[in-house]
């Protein structure tokens, strides 16, 4: 079957013959490897995307079920800029080490700031509670996002 949906603002079609996840579809068929496969269970957030305005794990979305939906991946968060505000803040704060969690955190944080331009620390932590980072201890990530929120 053909699935037609909006991907990073543009129309996309994909032939789906197997019960693969949206994550697999992005990687294998649509040339967007930015979202990462790290746990296949929705327990790490590395595959986070925005689906119809909601932050979800793309490994838990059936590719064949995105018909008519809007999907934004890490590749689409910056629009025409090289880096969006979240990405720039993380870069400057040293919040990237191995980088495997980074796309998921970028998407989750971009979603947060789109809904709330001045989140406090509690709100930042709650918004990122579904994103595991094994390298940084989250310190630099928090500093980046607090800085972006205009807070000390």
């Amino acid at each position: 079957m053909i699935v037609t949906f909006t991907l990073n603002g543009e129309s996309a079609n994909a032939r789906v013959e197997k019960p693969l996840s949206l994550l697999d579809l992005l990687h294998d068929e649509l040339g967007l490897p930015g979202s990462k496969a790290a746990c296949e269970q929705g327990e790490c957030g590395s595959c986070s995307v925005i689906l119809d305005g909601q932050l979800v794990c793309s490994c838990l979305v059936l590719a064949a079920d995105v018909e008519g939906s809007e999907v934004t991946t890490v590749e689409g968060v910056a629009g025409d800029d090289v880096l969006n505000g979240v990405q720039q803040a993380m870069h400057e704060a040293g919040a990237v080490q191995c980088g495997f969690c980074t796309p998921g955190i970028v998407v989750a944080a971009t979603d947060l700031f789109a809904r709330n331009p001045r989140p406090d620390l509690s709100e930042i932590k709650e918004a990122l509670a579904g994103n595991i980072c094994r390298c940084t201890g989250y310190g630099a990530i928090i500093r980046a996002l607090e800085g972006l929120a205009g807070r000390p």
Partner: protein
Amino acid sequence: MEVYHPTTLGEALDAVDEGAMPLAGGTDLMVETNSGHIRPEHVVGLRRVAELQAWEGNRIGSGVTWRRIEHEGPRALAQAARTVGSPQIRNAGTLGGNLGTASPAGDGHPFLVAVDAEIELVSKRGTRRLGWRDFFTGVKETARDEDELITAVRLPDDLPERQEFAKIGVRNAMVIATVCVVVTRRPDGATTVGLGSVAPTPIRAARSEEMISAIARPSQTDLDEFQRLVGAEVSPITDHRSTEAYRRHAAGVLARRLLERCLR
């Protein structure tokens, strides 16, 4: 493979009747698919069926997500919703999906059993409502027939004003409950205790309820006894997450603390 995208309940039921596997938020079904345990070739996606997301009074559509319940649900159910998975999981996962999977550790279940909720099941053959006792039949087993969809949960109209939830997990997010409990109390003393992760299905602690409901102003000694009784009434197991002894102990402690909150 065949995936249907119905927008009405009728279309959804047609698909289910033909053997399509219901897919709501995907937070359970896709885990099974990704691991290779199942290989769904025939699926009906339910997230476009507006009727399943309807929430009127105490009838909560099965398609309502944990995100909405967090903000709009009755107190103890909203408290439970806040502990489900992560923001990503709460945005996708549904009350109905949680029921369909019927894990003994399901975070929403203690509330439903504590308030004596009914589960509404619909098929092309008609509609039926099951009390939670008839609905949960075993570990990850329910009375849902293969051609039925869970369409809603019906809470009683007069929910107890005092209701409290707590869940034990070793981590502050994304954790399967070691024990989860809801306690409710009415002004006349009627108390209910719903528990999860301490038996093959969510349960009520009937003897503990009976004992404490009869006491208008429980003393510390009464609460000690209540705690002991709850611990005695549960049948937890030892697994890789926890031990029988700890779960028994924690169930009693949580029930007591939640009752104390209800009594304030």
